[in-house]
């Protein structure tokens, strides 16, 4: 039975090489789409990313040129509105899960948070359309910000909870043993220790909702001009890309490519920022 030892060895080497080869190809397939997307965007969009793109309003139909400054600013405004809703609720909810809630309540909350994370983003658009747009009879930046903020909440909730749970119990005990009140211990010791991880979670959530189109379709609605009041429809980069991409005009198509390139670059930059934050010197629980 052991007489074919040499052959067996060769066969095992072949199997090993096969397995690592397949794993390597799979890894390449994972990275490939990112490369393809970025390459495609560069080829099609780089030519249209110019000074005008960042400084001018969209040109009227038929006229060549113009830019997307209103959509870029609009996206930033929507992200600020979303943060106002998503960050406090998400972070405080995470604090509750990690520091206060009982095991039974927590498992229910955690489950619901995970369900919320899995809800298709267009659903949030529909919900906010029903709750806000219909009631106040108009699309608005507020509605768009609310839709994005609601998507951020479960994302931030779970990362905050996980980051807080990583803070060693010894720090809580040390603060409590100094006669520091529980809430002060949480704010000044626990959250401070976990802050880098929590900020990372917030940035990733912002990057995620920054690229959302569906929840804005019937909330923020989009706008070809400056938004002068948050009660009015507002432009957003993903919406503008969507509108331009399905239009019949070549110039708009080029601008849509440029917009997509700017958006992806922005998300990319946020991710690099996150990398730098989590790698940073000093002590971190992350």
């Amino acid at each position: 039975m052991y007489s074919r030892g040499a052959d067996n060895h060769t066969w095992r080497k072949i199997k090993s090489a096969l397995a690592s080869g397949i794993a390597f190809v799979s890894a390449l397939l994972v990275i490939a789409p990112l490369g393809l997307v970025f390459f495609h965007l560069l080829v099609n969009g780089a030519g249209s990313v110019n000074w005008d793109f960042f400084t001018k309003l969209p040109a009227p139909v038929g006229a060549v040129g113009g830019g997307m400054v209103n959509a870029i600013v609009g996206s930033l405004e929507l992200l600020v509105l979303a943060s106002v809703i998503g960050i406090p609720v998400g972070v405080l909810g995470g604090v509750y899960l990690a520091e206060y809630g009982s095991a039974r309540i927590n498992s229910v909350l955690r489950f619901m948070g995970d369900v919320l994370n899995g809800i298709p983003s267009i659903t949030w658009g529909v919900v906010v359309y029903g709750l806000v747009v219909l009631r106040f009879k108009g699309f608005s930046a507020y509605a768009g910000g609310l839709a994005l903020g609601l998507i951020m909440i479960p994302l931030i909730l779970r990362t905050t909870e996980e980051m807080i749970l990583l803070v060693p119990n010894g720090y809580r005990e040390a603060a409590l043993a100094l006669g520091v009140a529980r809430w002060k211990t949480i704010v000044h010791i626990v959250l401070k220790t976990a802050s880098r991880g929590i900020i990372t979670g917030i940035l990733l959530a912002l990057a995620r909702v920054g690229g959302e189109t569906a929840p804005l379709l019937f909330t923020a609605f989009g706008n070809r001009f400056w938004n002068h009041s948050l009660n009015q429809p507002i432009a957003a980069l993903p919406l503008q890309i969507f509108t331009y991409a399905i239009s019949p005009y070549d110039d708009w198509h080029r601008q849509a490519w440029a917009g997509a390139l700017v958006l992806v670059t922005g998300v990319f930059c946020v991710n690099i920022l996150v990398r730098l934050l989590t790698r940073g010197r000093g002590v971190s629980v992350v």
Partner: protein
Amino acid sequence: MAVPERSVMEHVEQPVEPAPSVESSPPLTFQVKNLSIWYGEKRAIDNVTLDVASNAVTAIIGPSGCGKSTFLRALNRMHELVPKTRMKGTVLLQGQDLYSSTVDPAIVRRRVGMVFQKSNPFPTMTIGENVVIGLRLNGVRNQKLLNERLEKSLRMAALWDEVKDDLHKPGTSLSGGQQQRLCIARTLAVEPEVVLMDEPCSALDPIATAKIEELISELKTKYTIVTVTHNMQQAGRISDYTAFFYIGRLIEFGPTTKIFTNPSERQTEDYITGRFG
């Protein structure tokens, strides 16, 4: 919550009854009577009665899981942080019931500080910030007072000369033994009456251990110290009184010299001579 500048000790309640003076006995800091503690269904402390003398070092010894840490934590209500704890009996600090419903556990912990087994300076703070954080978070804003307390606490913890030029460096940049002394300074800064120590040297090398032991002997002139230790020789070196715990019960308690040279209980003798534990 901005608490006006004042000593953090000011709002401590006065004792409800004066500490009974026991003739020919040293003054007492703690009087523990019939204390039992449960974690869920498990009884960790079983009917312990013990008096802790003031300005002395009381060592608690016993094998792992005998309840010595739980007993220590019951002295400043830290054991309550574990969910589903239950206690019975009384713990008097200077005659005042620590577990009375009108007593805030935070105030108890300001009077009864604690140093832990694993040194735990706050990683986000400098050496200086670590020392005064207890005062800061308890509402002290006066920078002059904070600076005074900073130097005084570090001197008492025998750390000032080593770190006085590095106060802005992270607390975690210090060596293990220095970190533990930093934690002691942090505890002393809020001016407690008692310092509890939960195996303060078990993670340290012999030289750092010797420094902490020396420090404990100096601190007892100002503070009452209760320390848990796994190290019998250490208990013999530093303590005035020794309590031997076994499976949640107090087996024997008395002057350290007596416990170590002439114990009354067979179990104590067996443990001290290394026959079990």
